[in-house]
Structures are given as structure tokens and as C-alpha cells.
């Protein structure tokens, strides 16, 4: 690996690796947390990672309309806001009916 690859400059690959790291941490959280709110936090982290990638492409990659990546990122943020509101409402509603938000115990569909 040439020395300038790591610290002397920001290349597209560096930002993409950052996005990949955040995405895999998000997967880890979303798949392993016991609390429904914790799962949602993982999902939000994954959406953020995707946004980082989109912004990086907008900044670095040849495109006829270079701002499209940022437009997409804003759409993703909008959808994330809607998703967070509905998911948290779901968590509260589930708690009201089942007295728990532990996703191990929310298993009505299993029977």
C-alpha cells in the first residue's frame, strides 16, 4: 500500500470505507439488540452510512448533475424521519399491549 493512500489525502475509497464501517456496525446493532428502540438505532445508523456514501459519490464521481447525490441524501433523511416516527410509535403501541419492548418476547405470530 503506497504511503499516500492512508493519510496524505482523502480519496473516494476512504469515505466509502467509513460508510461501510458504519453500515456494518448498524447491522450488528440492528440484529443483536434485545430492545426494539435499540434495533431502531441500528437502522438509523445504517441509513446514515448510506448517506455518507451518497455524499461521497456526489463529491468525487463524474456525473452530469453532480448535486444528485445530495438530493438523494435529503430524501433518505426525510424517509428516515418518517420511519423513526412510525417505528417509535409502534414500539410504544406494542409496549401498551404486551407490556414489553423486548423483541424476544414479542412473538405473537409464532403460534
Amino acid at each position, binding site marked *: 500500500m503506497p504511503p499516500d493512500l492512508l493519510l496524505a489525502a482523502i480519496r473516494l475509497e476512504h469515505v466509502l470505507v467509513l460508510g461501510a464501517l458504519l453500515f456494518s456496525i448498524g447491522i*450488528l446493532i440492528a440484529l443483536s439488540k434485545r430492545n426494539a428502540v435499540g434495533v431502531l438505532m441500528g437502522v438509523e445508523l445504517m441509513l446514515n452510512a448510506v448517506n455518507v456514501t451518497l455524499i461521497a459519490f456526489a463529491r468525487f464521481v463524474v456525473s452530469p448533475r453532480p448535486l444528485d447525490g445530495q438530493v438523494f441524501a435529503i430524501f433518505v433523511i426525510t424517509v428516515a424521519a418518517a420511519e423513526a416516527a412510525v417505528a417509535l410509535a409502534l414500539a410504544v403501541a406494542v409496549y401498551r399491549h404486551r407490556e414489553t419492548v423486548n423483541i424476544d418476547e414479542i412473538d405473537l405470530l409464532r403460534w
Partner: protein
Amino acid sequence: MITDTGIVVAFYVIGITTVASALMVAAVRDLIHAVLFLVLSFVGVAGIYVVLSADFVAVAQILIYAGAISVLLVFAVMLTPAGDRRNSETAFRAPAAVLAGLVLAVTVFVIYDTNWRIASHGQFGATAASLGRAFFKPYIVPFEVASVLLVAAMVGAIALTQEEGEDGAA
């Protein structure tokens, strides 16, 4: 490729902070601590946007993620029982870690294997006005769909959380 020393240092500092606080979200035992670390991670991502000269998206990120979604998360945590506030893992912890590691490995391989068409254009100027123009010219339909989606989400959230017998709700 950005070679300005200050920006490169800023990118690495912010990036390491972001990833570290994201890891702390997975690691800490208290759910409120996890939310606070998540906010730190969101702010770090906003810093990355600033480095990549996306100033409007960065500000929107702070306003929506760090300001609004974190408040929603805090609300949800406080509305659910104290006993579930341990940020503990299910039995899927080890498979999830393996899967996350595999996803990371595959993406990193793809990232370094692909021949990206790198542009030579410099950083963007002020993006707010051109973003607005983009929203109202080529992206007008998705923009309207997004607003419909927000209204639907709002109505859905209210309908889900409304208690029975309150204002004649179902």
C-alpha cells in the same frame, strides 16, 4: 481527492470519532447512554458532510437526526419500562457479528476492486439554492411523494399511539 492538510486531518479525526461512538452504541449497557453516543455519531456524520462540502445536508442532518430523531428516541426509551433499559443483546449476537464482519469485508473488497470514475471538479460552492432548484425542477414528483409520505407517517404515528377511548379513536 482532497489534499488540503487541515481538511484531511479533520476527516480522520471526525471519522474515527464517528466510528468509535457508533461502536459505543453497540457496547454500552445503558440505553440512554447508547442514544447519547448515537447523537455524537450523527453529529460526526454531519462533520463528514461538511468535509465533503455538502453544507446544507450537514445542517439538515444536525437538525433532523441530532435534534428530532434523537428526541424521539429519548421519548421512546422513557415511555418504555425501566427494566428494558439495559442495552443487552439477544442470542443472535455472535451470528450478527459474523454477518456484519462479512458485509464489511465484501464491501471493502468491492470498494478497492472497482475502478471509480473519479471527477476532477473541486468542492461545491453554496449548495442550498441549487438544491432547492433541483427539488423543484427535476425532482418535483419525488419531493411531493416525500411530503405525502411524511403526512402519512404523522397520521400513522398518531393513530398508533392514541389510547382507546381518547377523542373517539379506534
